[in-house]
């Protein structure tokens, strides 16, 4: 099937009645969950996965994509109103969004956020449409060594770019990898670390890990902070209107950050959080009035909001065309694909054009819905922030329990969920980042397979990774990314000396 036909099929799916309905459900739920402080896209996607069991895969994935970018969109609301970002990708939004709200211009801030998110989202979907098929056709020639190298690069990128200590991020990734080795080995049939328990033969389901490390760990944090932060701290909304001058001010950051954010989203390891920070910093640097930043600057709000939404669509490029997630969130998204029996990768575009193009085409509609949802309805939707903490905690636990129970219909997985909740909470307290864990866990099986297939081809010689130019260059990039934190460390030391 030609690519134009494929695009048309995609739009047909997206603009069908069901297509529109499921995009709407997806972005609505995503906005809701993303708005809740602490619960980000990972929890949102994980909670929604059980609902897709038995659904048509195309519609299910269209909905899940909506949940993902909806959650990023929703996160900005709590950043602006409460100074409590719902999602790490919207932390930078609070820098100028919250001061604006304090000045009684919360409505205006929400409107600026909604419009820049819309622009960032829409421009990057166009870029996604151009880049994803091109990358797919290149990636089709990749053999196991190149795939192994790609995943290796993704893992090193996320560990070196994650917050705090790189050693801790690496430890987190290694343990995630270790957990992935539990179960029957796909190549030899050997049982590994199952302790003879039949429930562990298939390995641990990724939903157990995702909901434990993210949703339940967040519940623990919520329990500790259950008395802080309520909607009473939130400011009055005020008018949503934006003046012509403000629109003019937004134009620059929106154009630049749409492209920059998209690019950062495509690169492994970066994603919405880093894109929003870099977007904020670059706009501050090139601004004629940098002193306004942090005090309610229009540009300072438009930049991170454009960048994080652009990065979200950018992250779909490696996911759809290579089948390799570059971040914790897209790793969970990959899990959602696999649960539905869809293997993303270079063959997806030719084998299932309705899924490949359907998801992309649905993003146009999703972004329009988000704009509509967020502009006139925001005062009503933001009422969700009024849910009392005790009820919220109980309900999040209930959703996690349903999600995990519906995978295998046994309580063994639920006890594991509880265990990973505790692990996730301890990781938070001791500052071990969780995204490398979930990415390594999901990539683990694929990486091991690619590694062993490569060595089977080469009869056990590691030289295969050096002989293949693509694999070699990716491995070099992977190793080089470790230099990044090292350089940062050295620079900091120099500063201390000065």
């Amino acid at each position, binding site marked *: 099937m030609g690519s134009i036909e494929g695009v048309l099929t995609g739009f047909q799916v997206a603009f069908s009645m069901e297509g529109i309905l499921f995009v709407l459900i997806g972005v609505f739920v995503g906005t809701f969950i993303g708005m809740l402080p602490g619960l980000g896209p990972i929890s949102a996607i994980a909670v929604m996965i*059980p*609902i897709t*069991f*038995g*659904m048509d895969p195309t519609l299910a994935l269209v909905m899940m994509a909506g949940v993902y970018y909806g959650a990023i969109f929703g996160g900005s609301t709590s950043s602006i109103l409460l100074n409590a970002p719902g999602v790490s990708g919207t932390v930078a939004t609070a820098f100028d969004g919250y001061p604006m709200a304090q000045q009684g211009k919360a409505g205006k801030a929400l409107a600026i956020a909604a419009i820049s998110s819309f622009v960032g989202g829409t421009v990057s979907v166009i870029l996604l449409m151009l880049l994803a098929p091109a990358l797919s056709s290149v990636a089709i020639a990749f053999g196991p060594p190149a795939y192994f190298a790609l995943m290796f690069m993704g893992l090193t990128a996320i560990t070196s770019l994650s917050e705090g*200590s790189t*050693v*801790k991020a*690496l*430890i987190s990734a*290694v*343990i995630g*990898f*270790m957990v992935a*080795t539990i179960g029957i*080995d796909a*190549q*030899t*049939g*050997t049982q*590994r*670390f199952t302790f003879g328990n039949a429930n562990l033969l298939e390995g641990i389901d990724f939903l157990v890990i995702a909901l434990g490390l993210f949703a339940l760990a967040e*519940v*623990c944090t919520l*329990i*500790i902070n*259950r*008395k802080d932060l309520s909607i009473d701290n939130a400011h009055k909304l005020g008018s949503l209107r934006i003046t012509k001058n403000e629109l003019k001010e937004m134009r620059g950051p929106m154009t630049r950050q749409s492209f920059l954010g998209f690019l950062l989203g495509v690169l492994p390891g970066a994603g919405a959080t880093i894109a929003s920070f870099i977007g904020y910093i670059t706009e501050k640097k090139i601004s004629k009035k940098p002193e306004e930043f942090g005090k309610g600057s229009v540009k300072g709000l438009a930049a991170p909001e454009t960048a994080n939404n652009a990065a979200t669509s950018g992250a779909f490029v490696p996911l759809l065309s290579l089948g390799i997630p570059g971040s914790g969130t897209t790793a969970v998204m990959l899990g959602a694909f696999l649960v539905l029996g869809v293997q993303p990768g270079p063959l997806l575009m030719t084998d299932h054009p309705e899924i490949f193009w359907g998801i992309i085409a649905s993003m146009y509609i999703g972004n329009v819905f988000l704009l509509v949802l967020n502009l006139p309805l925001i005062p009503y939707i933001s009422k969700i922030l009024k849910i*009392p*903490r*005790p*009820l919220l*905690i*109980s*309900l999040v*636990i*209930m959703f996690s*329990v*349903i999600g995990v*129970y*519906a995978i295998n*219909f046994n*309580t063994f997985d*639920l*006890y594991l969920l*509880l265990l990973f909740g*505790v692990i996730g*909470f301890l990781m938070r*307290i*001791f*500052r071990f980042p969780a995204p490398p864990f979930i990415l390594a866990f999901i990539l683990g099986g694929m990486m*091991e397979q690619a*590694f*062993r297939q490569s*060595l*089977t081809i080469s*009869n*056990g010689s590691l030289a295969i990774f050096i002989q293949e130019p693509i694999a070699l260059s990716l491995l070099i990039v992977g190793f080089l990314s470790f230099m990044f934190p090292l350089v940062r460390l050295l620079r900091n030391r120099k500063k201390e000396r000065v």
Partner: protein
Amino acid sequence: MLKSINQKISIVLIVVAVGYLLLAFQLPSFPYSPVDADVLPKGLGVLLILLAIGLYFSKDTETEAEKEQRRIPKKDIAALLVVFVFVFLYIFCLEWLGFVLSTAIFIFFCSLYLGYKKHMTNALVAILFPLFMYVTFTELLKISLPQGILPF
């Protein structure tokens, strides 16, 4: 001897890694594969030990703010443990009492314990939410949740 928290964590990690390695060395071998099932686990075990040693000697000390974040009041630890026990009992009773009943009891008492004072709202949420989820899953999505002792 173990001054910083990182050093304590690294000891725990080394214990985990050694345990994992001991298990990895017991994996049966399979003669017809260039890379056997035990290669990767062994590599990971060794890697974790190396990283833990790296963590032990790493110089990054905690800032005061980070330490403060780690300090959880005893009252909150107790709250965490109680909720933990609640969830444990909830899972334990899930298949026996059924989804609707056990979830309703869990939501009501968990919210009550955490300080929710509006008992009527609490009871309503505790009954309506599980019912709604149960009907959605079993009727709309055709995913059966445990029925338990209730007749429907």
